């Protein structure tokens, strides 16, 4: 794989990444913060984000693939419990989550 090939791949990736962003910025001109379209787009965005999180926890790619699915799910479930017990303290709960995951996994 030549160096110029990698640079082309990076530039094409940048275009493929910026395209949905700029199209989104252009389309947003027709969206009102209090309108129904805004709520519709919120539903879609949260749906895609939840699907992405679910996929990372259940079918991850990369280094997380080497860890047990059960460990990831237990850590996730107890992190959510911790989040509610700490009145939605995201910082504490996130740290709790990775420490717990480390303990379960190793």
């Amino acid at each position, binding site marked *: 794989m030549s160096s110029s090939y990698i640079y082309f791949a990076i530039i094409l990736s940048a275009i493929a990444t910026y395209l949905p962003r700029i199209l989104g910025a252009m389309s947003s001109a027709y*969206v009102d913060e209090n309108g129904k379209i805004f709520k519709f787009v919120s*539903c879609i965005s949260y749906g895609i984000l939840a699907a992405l999180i679910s996929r*990372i*926890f259940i079918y991850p790619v990369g280094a997380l693939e080497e860890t047990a699915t059960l460990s990831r799910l237990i*850590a996730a479930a107890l992190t959510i419990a911790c989040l509610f017990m700490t009145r939605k303290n995201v910082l504490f709960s996130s740290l709790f989550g990775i420490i717990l995951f480390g303990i379960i996994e190793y």
Partner: protein
Amino acid sequence: MKNTFNKSFRQGCFEGAGIPGISLCASFFALGAVFKNTGLDAYQSFLSTLIAFALPGQVVMAETLIVQGALLNVFLAVLLTNARLYPMTVNLIPVVRQEGRPKWHYYVLSHFIAVTSWVHFLANYEKIKKEDRFNFFLGFSSTLWFLSVIATVIGFYIAGIISKKIFIALIFLNPIYFLCMVVSNLRTKHIIFTVIFSFILSPILFLLSPQWSVVIAGLVAGIVSYLIFIHFK
């Protein structure tokens, strides 16, 4: 423009350097290591996060390069992976919109919209005055971008030095943080239903179509939730 880099911008920078920045840095640190294993050099790793700032798309690019994929494959795979940025941007820009601000400012701002900045900002924007939101988000998200670029390069250089167990725990921080942010932001019925439905649907669809599962699950859950809780209400 001269009023953009004001107190709200600095507050955004400060907030970005906190837990959202730490969480994102952990993932980009890991990405630097992935790039090194893929065969990219430090400049290429730096450039990738600088101009194509969206972690899942960058991972897909690296994976496609590993299997010697054609450039068209790289483009389409990254486009599909990053399709989620379209509704996120449509959703975020109306919240930060300011009267009189030129359109190109929003086009520049859109480069910094990614999952971490989106989820964190939408969970907290109501506390920020409407006229301060653009500057705050610009400071917040550009700080995340800047830290991610640095973390990618550091990850590239020190890949292999730190223990693999710590490395994996660091990677886990970002999804855990996303999870906490999404759960802490569940306030309305339509969003609660969307998130739970999509969370269940996504792994089922993954078995049928790994590449499309995230987009389809998000669309189906979002549309069903909208119809039930808003349209036919």
